[in-house]
C-alpha cells in the first residue's frame, strides 16, 4: 500500500500520452553516460560483427554510409524515468547489417568506443526493431548523444541503445554488459518496468 503525500498532485502528462509505467514526458534530451564522451574521427570509425572468434562483417564509415538507410520515428524511454515521444532518426537497419549472416548464436553483446557494452537477444535487434543511427532530428548526432553512430533499440530502455557503437559480438548465452553488471535489468523492457536486476 503506497504512502499518500497530502497536497501532492503532480504534473500529469496529457491523458492521450501513452507512457510505460513510472515514466514522465520530457521535451529535453537528457544525457546519461558513465565516462568521458569519446571523440571518434570518421576515418578511424568502423562497425564489425563477430562471433567471438572471427570477424564476420566489417564496415568503415564510407561503406557503412553506402548502405540503404531508413527514417525512423519512435518513442524512447530512459531508465532514469524520462520518455520522449516521436523522436526522428536516420539510420541503417540491423536487418541490413545482418542480412548475409547465418548464425545459430541467439544473443549479442554490443560494444562501443569508450569500452561500454550492452547485451540483448539477437531477435530483439532483428525484424525492424533496431538501427545504427547517425542522424537525430535531421542533423548529425552530437558527440554526447553518440556520434558518429549509435545503436537505437527503442522498445527497450535507452541504455540498451549503445552510443558510440563500434561492433557486436554474437554469443551462445546471454551475458550482462556494463550497466547490466551494475544492478540494471538483464533485458530492460520499459512496459514491464524492468529497471533493476531485482525486478
Amino acid at each position: 500500500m503506497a504512502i499518500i503525500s497530502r497536497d501532492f498532485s503532480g504534473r500529469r502528462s496529457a491523458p492521450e500520452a501513452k507512457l510505460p509505467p513510472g515514466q514522465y514526458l520530457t521535451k529535453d534530451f537528457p544525457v546519461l553516460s558513465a565516462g568521458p564522451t569519446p571523440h571518434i574521427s570518421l576515418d578511424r570509425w568502423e562497425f564489425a560483427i563477430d562471433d567471438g572468434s572471427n570477424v564476420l562483417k566489417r564496415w568503415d564509415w564510407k561503406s557503412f554510409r553506402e548502405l540503404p538507410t531508413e527514417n525512423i520515428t519512435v518513442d524512447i524511454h530512459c531508465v532514469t524515468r524520462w520518455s520522449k515521444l516521436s523522436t526522428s532518426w536516420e539510420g541503417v537497419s540491423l536487418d541490413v547489417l545482418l542480412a548475409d549472416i547465418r548464425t545459430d548464436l541467439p544473443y549479442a553483446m554490443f560494444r562501443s568506443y569508450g569500452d561500454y557494452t550492452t547485451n540483448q537477444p539477437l531477435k530483439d535487434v532483428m525484424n525492424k526493431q533496431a538501427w545504427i543511427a547517425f542522424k537525430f532530428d535531421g542533423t548529425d548526432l552530437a558527440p554526447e548523444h553518440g556520434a558518429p553512430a549509435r545503436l537505437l533499440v527503442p522498445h527497450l530502455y535507452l541504455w540498451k541503445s549503445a552510443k558510440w557503437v563500434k561492433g557486436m559480438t554474437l554469443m551462445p548465452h546471454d551475458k550482462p554488459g556494463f550497466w547490466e553488471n551494475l544492478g540494471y535489468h538483464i533485458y530492460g523492457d520499459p512496459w514491464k518496468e524492468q529497471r533493476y536486476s531485482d525486478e
Partner: protein
Amino acid sequence: MWRTAKVLGLHDETATARTLMLSVRDWPGHVAGQHVDVRLTAPDGYSAVRSYSIASAPSTAGRIEITVERLPNGEVSPYLTQQVMVDDELEVRGPIGGWFVWRPEQTGPIQLVAGGSGIVPLMAMIRSRVSTGSTAPFRLLYSVREPGAIFYRDELRSLSDQRDLLIVTYAYTRVTPNDWPRPAGRIDPELIENDTWPSHLRPSSYVCGPTSFVEYATDLLIAAGHDRSRIRTERFGATGERK
C-alpha cells in the same frame, strides 16, 4: 522494493536547495555516490518518481540524507523542497548505481569536480572518506554560479581548514566574492593545471553536474593528460540547447 522513509529533519542549503534527513525502514546500506528513487503518491493514486543522489556517508543506522535542488518546472522537487514536513513519510527505493561510487578501499588520490548541485554525490564521498578514517588524498573543484549557491558551505570550510582531509577550490561562473582573484567564468585549463591533482599522480576523477559542464570538464581533464579510463561521470538535466 519500496521502503518507507520518515522525514527526521529538513535543512536549507541555499535559497533553492534543501537537505532531507530520512530514516529508512530496513535500509540495506549504501556506497558513497549511489542514489535513491523517491516516490510521491497523490490521494487519487497518481504517483511520480525521481532519482536523488545520497549526500550522507554510508551508515548502518538506516539514516540517509538527500539534497534536492528545486527545478523551475519540476514535478517532485518543489514538493520535496517546499511542502514536505518533519515526520512525513515518503517511499524510497535503492540504493541504485554501482559505477559512480567511491569505496574506502580505494587508497589513491581522488579528484572531485562538481558543477552546481552535482556536488551531492561527491559530498557523500568526502563524508565517507572522513568517517572511515581513509587517508586517500581528496581534492574538490566546485563550480558554482555565485557564493550563495554553495551547498554544505560550513562543513566544506571546516574540512578544508584541515588540509590533510580535503583541498577545496571554488570557481564562480557568474558572481564572485569580493576581492576574489579569479574573474567569474567557467572553469578553464589554468584552473585545472593549478587546482587539481596533476595527471602524473594518476588520480581517479569523479565529475558530476549538468551535461554541458561534465562534457567541458572531462575534455579539460583529458587535455591535461588524465587517462580517460580513470574519469567517471554522472550527468543530469538536459543538454542545454534544448531547454
